């Protein structure tokens, strides 16, 4: 069964450092998403991406965040200057349609900012 792959599984970074979280969505999917989940809390929407541009973003997704699809297979989330409160699980997801379709999620990257 096709999978969404995320790397690394765990990233520890110093506060103020830049991090890039990587995702390989399902190959024939056209819509891509990043979500985050602070420990024990709900899954929060960050951004959706379609046709090489951001489709929608949440209030969390401020100027410190950016997304990119650098080639035909990868989808990345960059946090420019990490804060302690950025510590969370970050999930990438993809779908074949924009609405009316369930998402396939990756296993996540646990980001720990120290």
């Amino acid at each position, binding site marked *: 069964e096709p999978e*969404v792959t995320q790397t690394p599984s765990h990233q520890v970074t110093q506060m103020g450092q830049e991090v890039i979280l990587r995702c390989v969505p399902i190959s024939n999917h056209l819509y891509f*998403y990043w979500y985050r989940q602070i420990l024990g*809390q*709900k*899954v929060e*929407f960050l951004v959706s991406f379609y046709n090489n541009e951001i*489709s929608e973003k949440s209030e969390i997704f401020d100027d410190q965040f950016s997304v990119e699809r650098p080639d035909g297979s990868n989808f990345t989330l960059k946090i420019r200057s990490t804060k302690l409160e950025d510590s969370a699980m970050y*999930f990438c997801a993809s779908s074949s349609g924009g609405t009316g379709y369930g998402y396939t*999620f990756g296993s996540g990257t646990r980001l720990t900012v120290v």
Partner: protein
Amino acid sequence: GESVGLHLPTLSVQEGDNSIINCAYSNSASDYFIWYKQESGKGPQFIIDIRSNMDKRQGQRVTVLLNKTVKHLSLQIAATQPGDSAVYFCAENLKRGGFKTIFGAGTRLFVKA
């Protein structure tokens, strides 16, 4: 508003019994709803979905019911098994010039052997 919330944070059931997990949503314009299951250390996993033009949809051992009048969604799991122990999220698919799915707070299901 665009909130999706759950009535109970935890649910404990005996193995073999049926489970019912409830969810309330507030955006009457939403037209697509999904239930996701999240096991410890994993990402959310799609279980079943329903469009707003339906009241009920059945899958393998799972049924989703949608009551648009009271904006209520439920997930029924038949013959609950230990492997069903997880956190269950209802989610609401919104399109307002963009694409996103909003998750509810989650219900943790414990299955007692």
